[in-house]
């Protein structure tokens, strides 16, 4: 019973954490009008040297560094629901669990590349551009763990063979759709402009919107599942 109360604490922290993510996202000057990969090294260096930008770059990336990892407890709540599904082995829960740390770890690497680029803006512009490239390619292209965890979750839902499944089948279809929406961003480095570029329609807008929609929708269905679990265990909701 107490363990489920702890789950509710983590679950209801999500709106607060989500708000922090949105504010950090809007604070980073490279996201509001996403930086173009076609900027020259001098333009990239000027972006970091701009006294109006520098504190916002550092502040947003410090906050992201603190709170990006807060996604992991939320994902582990999903693992707990996968363990309740009518599977014969924990193999699909292991698949999802193995993916859980991948996304936030890679995001943390991108975050550090941005902070390193901002650390000494007086450095040679080519070096600042190098770390800016590393940051954007890592941030944008590293969708693999998110894609795989959505697909593993969809498979787990499809194989939840019980009269009242933990998640309804549409949640599985939804996860496959999100995986498809995230996929094009992996090809970010193939183009410096157009929809695949890191500031493009597919790689920036569709991918980041898909992540946000996924978190919101999964939070709703997860909350329903947790409260249903409490009722079934006889805990007053």
């Amino acid at each position, binding site marked *: 019973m107490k363990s489920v109360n702890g789950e509710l604490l983590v679950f209801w922290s999500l709106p607060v954490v989500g708000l922090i993510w949105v504010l950090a996202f809007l604070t980073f000057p490279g996201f509001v009008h996403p930086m173009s990969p076609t900027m020259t090294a001098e333009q990239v260096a000027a972006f970091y040297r701009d006294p109006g930008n520098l504190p916002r770059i550092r502040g947003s990336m410090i906050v992201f560094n603190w709170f990006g990892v807060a996604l992991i407890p939320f994902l582990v709540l999903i693992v707990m629901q996968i363990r309740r599904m009518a599977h014969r082995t924990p193999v699909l829960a*292991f698949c999802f669990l193995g993916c859980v740390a991948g996304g936030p770890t890679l995001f943390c690497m991108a975050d550090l590349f941005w902070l390193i680029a901002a650390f000494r803006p007086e450095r040679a512009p080519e070096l600042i551009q*190098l770390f800016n490239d590393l940051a954007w390619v890592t941030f944008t292209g590293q969708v693999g763990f998110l894609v795989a965890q959505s697909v593993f979750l969809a498979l787990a839902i499809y194989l939840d063979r019980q009269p009242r499944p933990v998640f309804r089948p549409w949640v599985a279809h939804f996860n496959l759709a999100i995986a498809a929406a995230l996929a094009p961003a992996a090809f970010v480095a193939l183009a410096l402009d157009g929809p695949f570029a890191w500031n493009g329609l597919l790689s920036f807008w569709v991918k980041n919107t898909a992540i946000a929609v996924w978190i919101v929708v999964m939070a709703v269905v997860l909350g329903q599942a947790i409260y249903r679990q409490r009722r079934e265990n006889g805990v007053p909701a």
Partner: protein
Amino acid sequence: MNTAATQTLAPMPASAPARGKRRDDPKLELWIAWWVTIAFYNIFTIAFFILSRTQPPPKAWWHLPRIVQWFDDNHFGILFGFAMMFLIVGFSIAANALIAQSMRRMSVSPMFAYSYLIIYSLAGVPGMLLTCIALTVGAMRPDRDPKLLSLLYDMGFLSFSGTMGIFLIGSLVWGIAIVLDNNRVLPKWFGYMNLSNALTEVVVAPCVIFKAGPLAWDGSIAYYINMVIFGIYTGAFIMLLRNMIMREDFGSGVLPVLEKPPRR
């Protein structure tokens, strides 16, 4: 109450909706993990050996103009091949999950399965993605300063070969579990074969020092011998896991041997 522990091997409800035979196959989740493993290793091979030409690796002793030329020659292959790896890296977890499941079926502590799952699940980040990211960033701007291209080249190949402890300790964890197991889930010889895979990570260590010769990242010892051992090891465990799934009885004692030739 720990629902996770009690429901792991919950019996399938007899009234499960029949939507066709395949979906009702109780081993389907295991077969999915196995087939995803097969697909992952095939795409990995295409991306690294054929598209990006990063395997077998180019030379550690090359000078700047040759490195710049290598990025030029393989521009599209690197960008496209590694984009595929960015997309599918998470599916490498299926093999780890299945291997963890093999240890859950053994008579050993669950500690082995969880250790292996955690160790190997992040292996892809330093051991593969960092390589892909560094070489992708190198290839995406061919006009970058050659000195920086050379830095990315070293970063790429050293992180690939130089990520050693994950595979060293991970192989030992699995090997020890197999040797200790009383349920005969996997053969003992394969437990000892894990030691050979662990040893490749010892032999590869000098690649962080030597820029030429058999111990460099492209050398006969650090690369070719290790790749042969890794190939045999991977082929062996893929077949042994297939065999394990066919023998799976969802019980907890000794895993039965196959009585008749496999039908699959």
